[in-house]
Each structure stands twice: as C-alpha cells, then as structure tokens.
C-alpha cells in the first residue's frame, strides 16, 4: 500500500487516468497517458435492452456530458427507427445541449483549469485568491445547469428528454425568464474571455494539430465530420474512418483516423473549422483570431471561453425562437419497433461524439458503438506529451509531471466518457 500515500492519478480532470514517465539517469525521455478507468462496458450493457431504454442507460456514461449523451443516443435510436421529431423538440434539445456546454466549459475554466494559472490547488484556494472570478464562474455554471433542469428536468441525467419528444414542455414564462438571465450574463461571459486571454502560459510552444469536428450550421448537431485539412466524412462512415483500436495501456480504444492524424477534437478544433457563430462570439473570434486560428493546444482555454459566450448567445437565440414560435404542450411522437441501425454525430463540450445502435425487428438492441472526444484525443495527447519531452530536456521528473498534467488539462479530458 506504500504507493497509496501519493496516488498516481490525474487531479482536476473527470475520471481516472495517470501519466507514466520513462526515465533514464534522472531525465525524462518519454511520457504516456494511461486511462486506467475500470472498464464500464456500456456498449455491452445495452445489448438486449429495448429501444426506449437505451438513452436512459447510456447517459449514465458521464455526468458532465449526460445531456449530450442523451440527445446523441435519442437521435441515433430515432434514425434507426425512422422516427422524426417536431421542430419544437429539436429546438429544445439544442437548448439543453447548449446548457450542458455552458456548465461544462464554466466548470473546466473556473474550477479545473484556472487554479493552474493562479498557483492554487483547486476551488477552495481559488475562493481566497480570486473570489470574484470564482463567483462569476459559478454563476455562469449555475445558469448552464438551470437550462438543463428546465428542459431536461435535471442537471445530471436529464429524464425529460424522451424518444420522439419531451415529457413536459417548458412554459413561455420560464423561457422568457431564462432569456433575461442569459442576457444578464453576457458581460460575465465577455469578462471570461478577457480572463482567459490574460492567462500567462508556462508550457513551452507546442506544434499545432489538425482538428476534426461534426459540422452542421449553428447547432452542435452534425450531419458529417470535417477536418481542418479538408476531409469530409458522412455520419454513417464516421465510425469506420475513426478506426478504433486497442492498446495495452488504456481501457479506452484509440482512434487511428484511417492512418491519418492524430486529430484534435474540442473547442479549438471547432473554432478552426469555422462553425457559424453568434454576433458577439464572432467578434471575439475575429479579435483573437491570430491567437486561435492554426494555434497550438495551449489556445484551448481561450477557445473554450469564446465558446462559452457563443453557447450563452446561442441559448438566448433559441429561447427567442421558441417564444416566437409560441412554445406549446405536445405529446412525444409514438414509436413502433423495427429492425434498423442509426448513427448520430454531435459536438459534446470536449468535441466529436458518435453514437450508433442496431435493433432487431422486436426493438431489442443488438449492437452499440460510442466514440467519445476524449478517446479521440488520446492520439493528440500522446503527440503533445512527446513534444513536451523534446521541449523540456532538462526538467526534473517532478517538474515535468506538473507541466504534463497542465498540458493534459488543456484537453479537458473526460475519462469516464473515454472508457465508457
């Protein structure tokens, strides 16, 4: 039990991972990220379950990303069953996903990443050193949760999002109140961009990485996968293109991108793929373009801050659209089981997420595939750790490890998702 005093586990990231160093004569000559999270086996757990249970089960893969997992699973199952949903349902799902984006980005920026730049160990010290910033971050985070609660019924594992529709539809009054709250937080989101832009980076200059993301207009829902080096892959071909393999050091499969790559998934990749932005976020991106476009991984926090503003503005637009369209109660579309398969691509806070399910004629799941952004990012993590070893040839192992942890936190990894 000697090694338990210092548990070799990454801190301030979701899930269980560690960095393993290779040393020669006291010098670090290699570094590797190992996602040792216990095997969750969700892709097997849902086999045999009925079509209307899949999303309720798989959203339990991860709490931070539960809303986006739920929506991706619903979309994939609906495609398999050839079921369409109303425009109102579509807009409400988009709103819920933006709520998740706000909560996740605020959690990462203010609670998990900011301590690295202010020399603290976490939110308890942050509350003393930067109470105003922490308070602002928690207010933004709370608003993301409020959206998820209003639409999904709960901030974590939203039950109100159902196959074919919703249980209860939010009232016009509640959406109007939410719109006011979103409007009030726009200055805080702008201040967050300034905060992120002003953080002093102690990591050495790293080479930029090509990015990949699902793209389809202003929503985070994607019809196809695109890369910054010009590849376009349709949703049904994405799983084959990602080409997941086993390694002997991670319980998460590693994407090989059909011998290309590695590609980066997440906020920086999305901004580099020029997803359409709301006006203020577009202005912010334009202003900081030289620090973001073609930029290395360390620009991720700034990208995340711009996306935080984007998500708040986008949620506001969605509230207004729903109010203009006179949001009204409606029943979820009824479903009939049939044999089929369906794939959904969606942008989760950390990047590209794929859900794919097959069903037998009686509506039982026969196969499931989930590919998550942190699993996709394992290749990029390995490449960046190698670059860090080259750039810090004389660092003591302890110093190197601290820098390597900062580097990994730039990815905002979600290891429960990766292993699922």
């Amino acid at each position, binding site marked *: 039990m000697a090694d338990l005093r210092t548990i070799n586990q990454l801190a301030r990231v979701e899930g269980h991972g560690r960095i393993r160093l290779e040393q020669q004569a006291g010098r670090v000559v290699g570094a590797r990220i190992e996602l*040792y999270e*216990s095997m969750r086996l969700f892709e097997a757990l849902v086999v045999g379950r009925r079509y209307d249970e899949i999303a309720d089960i798989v959203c339990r893969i991860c709490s931070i990303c539960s809303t986006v997992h739920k929506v991706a699973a619903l979309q994939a199952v609906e495609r398999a069953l050839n079921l369409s949903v109303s425009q109102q349902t579509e807009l409400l799902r988009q709103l819920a996903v933006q709520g998740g984006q706000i909560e996740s980005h605020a959690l990462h920026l203010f609670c998990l990443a900011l301590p690295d730049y202010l020399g603290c160990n976490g939110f308890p010290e942050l509350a003393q050193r930067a109470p105003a910033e922490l308070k602002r971050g928690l207010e933004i985070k709370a608003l993301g949760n409020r959206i998820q609660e209003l639409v999904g019924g709960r901030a974590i594992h939203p039950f109100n999002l159902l196959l074919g529709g919703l249980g209860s539809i939010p009232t016009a009054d509640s959406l109007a109140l939410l719109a006011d709250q979103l409007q009030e937080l726009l200055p805080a989101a702008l201040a967050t961009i300034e905060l992120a832009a002003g953080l002093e980076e102690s990591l050495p200059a790293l080479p930029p990485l090509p990015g990949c993301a699902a793209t389809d207009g202003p929503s985070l829902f994607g019809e196809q996968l695109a890369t910054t080096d010009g590849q376009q892959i349709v949703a049904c071909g994405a799983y084959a293109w990602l080409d997941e393999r086993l390694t002997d050091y991670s319980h998460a499969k590693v994407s090989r991108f059909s011998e290309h790559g590695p590609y980066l998934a997440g906020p920086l990749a999305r901004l580099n793929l020029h997803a359409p932005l709301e006006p203020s976020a577009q202005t912010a991106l334009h202003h900081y373009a030289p620090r973001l476009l073609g930029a290395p991984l360390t620009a991720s926090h700034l990208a995340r801050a711009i996306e935080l503003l984007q998500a708040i503005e986008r949620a506001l637009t969605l509230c207004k659209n729903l109010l203009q369209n006179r949001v009204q109660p409606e029943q979820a579309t009824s479903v009939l089981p049939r044999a089929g398969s369906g794939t959904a691509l969606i942008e989760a806070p950390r990047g590209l997420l794929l859900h794919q399910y097959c069903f037998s004629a009686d509506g039982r799941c026969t196969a499931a595939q989930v590919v998550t952004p942190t699993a996709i990012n394992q290749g990029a993590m390995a490449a960046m750790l190698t670059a860090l070893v080259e750039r810090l040839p004389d660092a003591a192992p302890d110093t190197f490890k601290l820098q390597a942890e900062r580097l990994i936190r730039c990815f905002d990894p979600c290891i429960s998702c990766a292993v699922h």
Partner: protein
Amino acid sequence: MNRPRLAIVGLTACSGCQLSLLNCEAELPLLLGQVQFELFPLACSPVQMAEQYDATLVEGCCTTAHEAELLQELRSRSRLLIALGTCAVWGGVATLRSDTPREQLREQVYGPQPPSDDGLPQPLSAYVAVDACLTGCPPEKHELLALLADLLRGNLPVRGVAPVCSDCRMRENLCLLQERDQLCLGPLTLGGCGARCPSMGVACEGCRGPAPETNLAEAMAVYQQKGFDEQTVTARLHRFCPEWRHG
C-alpha cells in the same frame, strides 16, 4: 470548532454524485468555511492520502482489485464512510447484465482479445462497512447538503422508508401507473426526490433503488393488470439494482 476533514472519491461511476456537490454553486463558497476538502481528485490537486479523515464520501461501485484496495485503505483511515449515490449503495447501471459472464461482455466491447479484468461491479457494502447511504442517480443536491449538515452536527442521515408514490401524493400528481398505464416504478422505489420525474409526466425509472417496505407481489399484480409482463418489469427494476430486495 475544527472543520471536518473530508475525502470525496469516485470509483466506477460517472462522477455525477461528486458533480452534484460542485453543482451546489450558491452554497460552495459557504461550505469552504465549514468543511475541509482534503482529498477530492475531481476538483483539487494534489491527490495525496492523509493519515485520517473525519468522513469519506465514496461514489461509484467497486469493480477492480485496485478499487477494492483503495476503498479498504480509505475505510481504515476514515471515522465515517458514506456510500454516495445509487452505484455505491446498490451497484447501479454498471451491474446491468450481471447474469452474463464478464468475459463475454468484455469481448462484446473490445473484441476477441479484451484487456484483462479482475473484478465484478459491486456495491461498497460488499467490501467494507458503510456508515450511511445517500441514494439516487444522482442524489438530490438538498440531500447532499443535508448530509454535510448532519456531519457537522455529528449526526448521520436518517434513511428514508417511503416510496416515490408518497412524494407524488404530496405533490398531487396524476398517477402515471393507474391513470396513464405507464410502467412507473414509483410504488417500489425509495422516495425523497420529490417525485422529480413523475411530476414532469415521466415514469419513475427506479434510480433511487428499492424502498424498504413495499409489497412487490401486489405491485407485480398491478403491473400485470396494466399489461406489463413480469420479465419487462423485472428488467426495468434491475436497471439500477441487480438484487431488488424487498419485505
């Protein structure tokens, strides 16, 4: 008064119970004056184990030998050990298909040569003595805050007995089982959530695990009367708890 020293640790789970604490955004800064987060890898660095904790909150079920070792070590260093959430208390979704050999499940996910595995997902009580339980997937924030308040006063939370149906009655909800013919697990599931799901017209999925005093046979008769066969009901009951103990 010294602030109680807490350890908050996750095993096999989604981090949702720990995130529920971080989702107490308004209360979080106030809590810092009341308790010390000594070990909380999700939110604080470094990850180092102290000699002793006043209370350890453990999320997730225990799956691997490494997790069992960690859990036992935490138990030996903690005055109180609390199972946080449905996975820690009952096993949770990780225990789905627990009747199928684990090897077969691993091959289904990883192919013919899966990584080696050394355990089965089980509730914490399979490995260590648990002083208190907070159920729910995820637990309600108010329950989590009440737990911390109890710890500050040197108490432990009282375990509820009433099913979700009681919460529904209090809120004067329409009964989804009786009046809408939906497979609602409210009659059998431990309440305390304020009937969160049925209040929005969504049937209870049993995420808080079994209520201690329910009449399973009677409930099964009602489900069958409503057209749900025993196999369907049992499969639904097992979503969060492989052994639905009752009586």
